[in-house]
């Protein structure tokens, strides 16, 4: 092979690899992105059953019911609506009524939300950022840190 041909082979190989990687990334995105919704969004738009979403808001006071074994059901609210959620597993340490929460999962055909993960982070004042932003817009909630400063 001449110098030029060698160089061309290398470049073609590299470009081909990058192309494959880009396609792979696009495919992976289409498979695994979850959009974020709050209960008031769900009142307006319809999410098809089986589509993976993140649902965020506040855990409605008095809505937490522990069922059989480790199944827990509760309602997520943001003032503009409230969505019942069921979850099987151990809830995070900071899961409490009236606190912010983000759950990830799908609606089943009967429009019940089944969460397979419930997120809560590691700060007693923690409010998931997506939830905090929206609640502030709606005036339901104030950042305690901003309030004290």
């Amino acid at each position, binding site marked *: *092979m001449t*110098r030029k041909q*060698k160089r061309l*082979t*290398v470049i073609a*190989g*590299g470009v081909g*690899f*990058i192309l494959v*990687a880009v396609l*792979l*990334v696009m*495919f*992976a*995105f289409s*498979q*695994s*992105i*979850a*959009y*974020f919704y709050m209960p008031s969004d769900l009142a307006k738009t319809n999410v098809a059953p089986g589509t993976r979403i*993140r649902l965020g808001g506040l855990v409605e006071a008095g809505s937490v019911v*522990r069922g059989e*074994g*480790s199944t827990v059901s509760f309602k997520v609210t943001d003032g503009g609506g409230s969505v019942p959620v069921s979850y*099987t*597993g*151990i*809830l995070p*340490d*900071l899961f409490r009524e009236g606190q912010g929460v983000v759950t*990830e999962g799908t609606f089943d055909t009967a429009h019940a939300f089944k969460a397979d993960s419930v997120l809560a*982070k*590691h*700060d*007693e004042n*923690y409010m*998931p*950022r*997506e939830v905090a932003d929206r609640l502030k817009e709606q005036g339901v909630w104030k950042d305690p*840190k901003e309030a004290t400063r």
Partner: protein
Amino acid sequence: MIIEIGHYALVLALATALIASILPVIGARRGDTALMDLAPLATITLFCLVAFSFSVLTWAYAVSDFSLLNVWENSHSLMPMVYKITGVWGNHEGSMMLWLLTLTLFSALVAIFGRNLPDTLKANVLTVQAWITVAFLLFILFTSNPFMRLDPAPAEGQDLNPVLQDFGLAIHPPLLYLGYVGFSVCFSFAVAALIEGRIDAAWARWVRPWTLAAWTFLTAGIAMGSYWAYYELGWGGWWFWDPVENASFMPWLAGTALLHSALVMEKREALKIWTVLLAIMTFSLSLLGTFLVRSGVLTSVHAFATDPSRGIFILAILSFFIGGAFVLFAWRAPQLKSGGLFAPISREGALVLNNLILTVSTATVLTGTLYPLVLETLTGEKISVGAPFFNLSFGLLMIPLLLAVPFGPLLAWKRGDLLGALQRIYVVAGMALVAGFAFFYAQNGGPVLAALGLALGFYLIFGSLTDLWYRANFGKLAFKIAFARFKGLPRSAFGSALAHMGLGVTVLGIVAVTTFETEHVLEMKPGMRAEAGGYSLVFDGLREAIGPNFTEERGHFTVSRNGAVVADVWSSKRIYTARRMPTTEAGILTFGASQLYVSLGDPMTDGGIVVRIWWKPWILFIWGGAVVMMIGGFVSLSDRRLRVGAPSRRAKPVKLAMEPAE
């Protein structure tokens, strides 16, 4: 009073850093040795000032001086001493101080060990280090000053975040920063080379030890962080593809690529421009990581109290250094002469493939990490990109790389013999497949992919030994002679073999855990029994206990196998008194490389409690592999030829294998 002296030392450090960032570079331009000699002196002074300031802060924490805002917010007089001290960097301000301390430490090390560097290069490198130092000193002094006073001083502190009250905090951040910030040296060398407009193989030889050291520490830091998250958070996961984890993983990937491309440059004078670019990118990713973690654009364990001015400040630092370096690169790089031709099938070709895959996968991780941020800024839509994305894209991209790893060392420089390498590899591949399927059957089946995955791990381990085997010429020479040759192999050969072997060990752990892990979530009452991984656990009940700054409910489990009691394990839920914050302390039992992981959930009204039990086969291999990689890094670092100060600019012919006297 001492606090004010510490604060003042930091201001003095800024002044020193300003001097170090202006005068030496002028000296280097004019060939003025006196100005250039200022650089090492100023750099070491800078380190002493920052170290003093840092010790003052540590002292304030040790004696619980709550008149400092930072100490009051993050410490408590009842905490054990070790957490008081590690608490120094368990918050934003202190963490930035540790960043700065590490940065000045590396600058000082370059000043001390770089005596043999040409004067101008040394002056330029130290100048660039000083620029970074100035930026971070300004950041600390103006937005994150740990020396703010409170008046009147409160009597008691607000306690350290309980999740951070763990020995992991003593090890994880310092190691991670030694890695993260260590790459600044590579960056400075790259920028200095661009300023001088001259670069050669000797440059690569000077940069490689620093890259290797930073890489080794970063490997250790990431592994430690992963293990810490695994045992502390009580979720049983060891990697979440959390943006903050990605922030440390991207420099690691780029640093790994840099390590390999610097090798090509040192040995063959090829890939010069690429190596310089990679050095810039690696540290840029470290800076980006600092921005992601510190600015509060992301919520995670690592994002402490957030303040928008900080984010903007770090973003400014980020754009200045990354933008500046790339502009300089675009301007100067065409002047750098490239050299060293090679055939696509050769050692260089293999290393180029390594670089291609590593950089593309870095880009993949970067895309997945930043896409939600970008989309939200542009359209306001909020999305999350989770583990499935990374597993699919990054995971698939890694497979060709892992397959290629054992080939590289078997190919000759310039023009390699693929067929010859294949002949050497196929035995290894066969052995690996046999081993993979043997373990697969021992585990009583599972997906066939698991067997192939295990075989891939074994293939990497055996493959790393193959290179040493052929270099020592075992099998052809008499054993005694071959063994003598084996002992005489350069340390760096052992280093790279160990690093590749560690990669294989980690792959084994990942495959075993992802495919053979079992998980049970169940409600248990005292006396109830559960099975996991061939062990049976009996729940004996809950008991209250009181720690120095927490109260806890401890669940006790008796573990038996085939009817005989083998161990017992406690798992607990703690409430930290000062913050009223609950945490889960998982109970972990180790059997060989596998672990039984028990974590408690919520108590039920009828006296039972939700318990989550995992059987994690071979999980310790994940971090064990990282330890082997780290050992490989240190073995390589101890190679004579890599000693930092030793090489001179005239590249002397290096004796490859040191033959024993016969």
